[in-house]
């Protein structure tokens, strides 16, 4: 019997770091960053849908795909075999962790898109200060920081939502940075364990052990510390510099996926106006997640 947990996050919030930690658990040397499953490792992978359904998602509209997606995740959670031996799951023992950037939404029949408890037992939701997400998202999408901030504030934002071509993944709705996190936190279909990127940086061993304990996996502090060393930002960046990373953004001027890996870099990456826009767009959720500095925001406007 295998068990499934979502690794849910808004893009550029530490999801890949967490997957690297899982992959490096109980290893004797750092795993190759390009050995992480890519195509089948994300819930929105087109191949998962096509292999379970046996007809191509590419012939359906986004809405028609969404209506069927709960069936895909239920089937995979039940243990449907994968067809690509090159793409093993990210797993610890019998627990699979599946990355998703999808918002927690419901189909037009009222079912959770990701299948509710039938699709996964729970979710580890990773959140990150939106002021740090914005420059990272800009780098990833080869867009300006202002464009990234607009995207993060757009209720209709999505990845792979084009209709005039076949995007490489199924559409992922990203209805504002705030809305995305609110959707996951406020739904009552499956249990959620909240992890802040900043807390992972401050005390990785404890945060990682806590998240795995939520999934029913007990690891020792030494095991967590070892995984943390192998998935250390310097190690990941070194591997990317030496050999490249297949999940790196295409066409990005800086070219790298692992950029700075620090919290609070927004202090020197964002203009005051950009900071103000993000804080105004997402004040409530920032407060809720402990990122807010509305007083400073007010002061800045006042000054």
């Amino acid at each position: 019997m295998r068990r499934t947990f979502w690794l849910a996050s808004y893009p550029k919030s530490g999801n890949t770091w967490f997957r690297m930690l899982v992959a490096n658990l109980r290893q004797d040397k750092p795993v190759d960053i390009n050995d992480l499953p890519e195509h089948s490792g994300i819930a929105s992978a087109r191949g998962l849908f096509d292999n379970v359904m046996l007809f191509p998602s590419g012939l359906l509209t986004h809405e028609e795909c969404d209506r069927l997606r709960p069936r895909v995740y239920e089937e995979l959670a039940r243990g449907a075999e994968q067809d690509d031996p090159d793409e093993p799951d990210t797993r610890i023992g019998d627990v699979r962790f599946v990355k998703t950037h999808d918002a927690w939404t419901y189909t037009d029949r009222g079912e959770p898109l990701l299948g509710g408890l039938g699709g996964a037992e729970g979710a580890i939701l990773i959140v990150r200060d939106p002021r740090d997400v914005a420059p990272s998202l800009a780098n990833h999408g080869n867009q300006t920081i202002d464009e990234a901030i607009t995207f993060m504030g757009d209720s209709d934002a999505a990845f792979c939502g084009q209709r005039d071509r076949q995007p490489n993944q199924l559409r992922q709705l990203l209805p504002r940075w705030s809305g995305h996190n609110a959707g996951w936190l406020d739904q009552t279909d499956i249990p959620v364990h909240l992890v802040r990127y900043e807390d992972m940086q401050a005390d990785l061993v404890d945060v990682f052990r806590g998240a795995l304990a939520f999934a029913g996996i007990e690891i020792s502090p030494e095991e967590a510390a070892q995984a943390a060393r192998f998935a250390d930002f310097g190690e990941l960046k070194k591997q990317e510099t030496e050999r490249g990373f297949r999940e790196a953004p295409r066409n990005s001027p800086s070219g790298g996926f692992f950029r700075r890996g620090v919290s609070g870099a927004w202090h020197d990456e964002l203009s005051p106006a950009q900071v103000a826009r993000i804080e105004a767009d997402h004040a409530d959720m920032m407060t809720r997640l402990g990122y807010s500095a509305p007083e400073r925001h007010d002061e800045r406007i006042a000054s």
Partner: protein
Amino acid sequence: MVALEHRIDQKADSRCSSSAAQRRYLGGERLFSYIVSGLGVSSEIALPGLIPDESGGSGAADIVIRGGTVPTALEGVTASGPTWQLAGDHFLLSIPGILRMLLIGGSEIRFETESAVSAEEAAIFVSGTGFGILLHQRGRIVLHASAVRVKDSAVLFCGPSGAGKSTLAAALVDAGYDLVTDDFCGLSIRADGSPWVEPDGRQLKLWQNSIDRLALAERRAAPVRSAIEKYYVEPRAATASALPLAAIYVLREARPPFAPGIARPNIVDAGLMVRNNAYRPAMVRRMAQMELYFQAAATIAQRAGIFTLTREINFARFPAVIGWLEAHWRELGLLERAA
């Protein structure tokens, strides 16, 4: 060991034209006749994109496609998924909201559309998905591939949906190589052990963005479904003849650790690539045809060649990629070497 089908239908050599599908009368009904993978097809509905049988389907059809009542479940199911059931030589596939298809013994597709869905809207699922699985049912080697003609041979481009098979074929057709097939491609191993390609279609299927980027607006025909922006595109030229297979290229995006270029994988990897690029790998496993595919891969690797073609997915790179391919075809002796 499952026997391969060696039969090559001479009807497949009939000249391709752009005229509408020929019809014939059978039991008083008007039927459409096509040649798919060398097999004669008689269909109650028009199936755009397939090769019309110019002879009007004189002999008995190998495959019959008809509307009728399709059950919602089968008895004696041995394997199933959320939308399909396998029971002996019966395979039931539901495309919710559009149609259900019952595939029987590799020789019949019975379909029932959901209410308010027209036959035109359902046709692409019959001619693509239905046929692909039907060929699996017949024990055929059927790959998810496009193919073009290089002199007197066929070369295939494999990859999952979105790998760029159709757009590469479209660019090659424009560069002077006739279209052999799009989407799926049936292979047969002849008595002398040589692999052959049986053409399956005579139109490309391209998304609007690709049509725009490849400047093919004038060749655009009907949408494959009215709900999506993917269209049949009339190729400059297509061939309906069976051709010896010269090479299979597995398409990959140039991202670490894959460097751009054409390479020959080792035989084990090549075997896995062929199986993983079956039209529906799950069907190969469910129908216990793994051995069939490994044998075919070994034959293809020995008698033709299995390669990886790794390139940036970027329309601007097409001239360069076609240049690599032409250089490779000269190396393989498919094209004359430059003087």
